[in-house]
């Protein structure tokens, strides 16, 4: 039995496809919040999205950050900002849309977690004995309505494809949307700036997502293929971990799971989801 999405859930923008995958004149279909959707790009490049059960009503649609976004409710006029995306020297990439048998909030929470790096991404994003998650700061920014984790630092053997040796990497995490996380990561090629890696989740069902991966990189050496391969390797390592979490939905009751200090960002994320009235892909707090 699936949850009836609350207004807070229905009114969000949702990614449904990489823009480049929607070729003019090819009708495609997908699933969002248990509803079948069709979409098509017209000859003029414009997009139309509609419910599989209702061909007469066009749903809202925008194209941002390389992906197509729609909504089943009344979405805000604009999507959250990622200003770096517009910087002209960046390499913006749709790195793949990968289906995972897990709830969207579990996928976001995993993305925020640094503690698993040495164990799951051994030799790439972490390595024993460098397992400590150092103290970092988390805030729920009321003004921007997002969760923000700053001063995150972690020792990484191969922080990016452009890294030639192990370095202590600095991370900033933003959760600007209940099912989106944006990661800023110090860039081995340009130490004063940051690479941007985002995960845009499309909840197909409460326990099934497509994770759309977006990269905005400062790397003029590696190819599109090799950068995609790097991200897919990382994500492929996460996938069995995600799919084996139980329960698959994220419990919002603070007593449901036992956090450690490194989980500060997850605690804030869960509280923020609760405050916003998100009821899809989660186990809400008992009233």
């Amino acid at each position, binding site marked *: 039995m699936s949850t009836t999405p609350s207004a807070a859930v229905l009114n969000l923008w949702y990614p449904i496809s*990489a823009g*480049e*995958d929607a070729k003019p004149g090819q009708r495609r*279909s*997908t699933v969002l919040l248990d509803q079948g959707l069709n979409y098509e790009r017209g000859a003029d490049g414009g997009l139309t999205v509609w419910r599989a059960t209702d061909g007469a009503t066009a749903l809202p649609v925008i194209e941002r950050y390389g992906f197509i976004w729609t909504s089943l409710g009344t979405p805000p006029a604009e999507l959250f900002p990622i200003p770096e995306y517009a910087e002209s020297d960046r390499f913006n990439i*749709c*790195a*793949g*849309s*990968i*289906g*995972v*048998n897990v709830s969207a909030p579990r996928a976001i929470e995993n993305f925020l977690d640094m503690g698993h790096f040495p164990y799951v991404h051994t030799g790439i994003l972490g390595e024993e004995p460098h397992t400590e998650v150092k103290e970092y700061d988390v805030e729920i920014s009321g003004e921007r309505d997002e969760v923000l984790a700053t001063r995150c630092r972690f020792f990484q053997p191969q922080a990016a494809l452009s890294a030639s040796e192990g370095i202590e990497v600095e991370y900033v995490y933003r959760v600007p949307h209940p099912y989106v996380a944006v990661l800023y990561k110090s860039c081995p090629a340009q130490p004063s700036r940051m690479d941007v890696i985002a995960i845009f989740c499309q909840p*197909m069902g409460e326990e099934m997502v*497509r994770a759309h991966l977006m990269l905005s990189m400062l790397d003029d050496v590696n190819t*599109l*293929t*090799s950068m*995609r*391969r790097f991200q*897919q*390797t990382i994500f*492929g390592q996460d996938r069995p971990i995600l799919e084996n979490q139980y329960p698959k939905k994220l419990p919002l009751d603070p007593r449901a799971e036992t956090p450690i200090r490194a989980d500060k960002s997850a605690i804030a994320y869960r509280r923020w989801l609760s405050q916003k009235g998100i009821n899809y892909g989660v186990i809400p707090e008992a009233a």
Partner: protein
Amino acid sequence: MIILYDFELSAECYAVRLLLGFTGLAHEIRPVDMFPGREQDEAWFRALSPDGTLPVLDDDGLVLTALPAILAHIAARSGGLGRWWPAAARDEIARWFAHAESLADSALRARWIITTGDGHSLPVLQARAHALLRTLDRHVWFAEKSGADWLAAGAHPSLADVAVFPAVALCEEGGISRQDYPAIRRWLDRVRRIPGFHVMSGVFPAGPARADVPFGSQ
């Protein structure tokens, strides 16, 4: 130099990477952006692998696209043929190759559908089948032009004809018409006329021999 054209998330490519690791055979990996880039559809890759399948192994110009052949080749090149593909166990190993192919068609197809969100509908599978039939039709057409009747080189039908015939003969039950593949239809008839041919439900015997009827007047 041995070059492996590889996609990280492909289980079949992984089988090749595994054996390369076990045997320690020197090689170079060329990543192919199969997903989401669909680089396997590009002309340069189709020139190596006509159906766009991965993995592909290129050993100094000898290009192999079938997983069993790639594995056997690596075993031989590493000097480990007797260990990895012993003559006494070839029947058993061939059966496991077939088993692996069945798993690719079931478990791996399910994995791929979940992973890519692609192909969860009949039309996508049918389109893929048509693409495979087009390759086959082209192959048979050129073979016929050079005077050959069968899929693999030689005057006698081979295991290749036997292995491919059933799926092609039964494809219309999957809603995949053979109407656009005249060379395939002629080849099916030739197989049906091999002495000792048997039918099964859904597969009919060849009509009376009419090899002397010119094409187009049938």
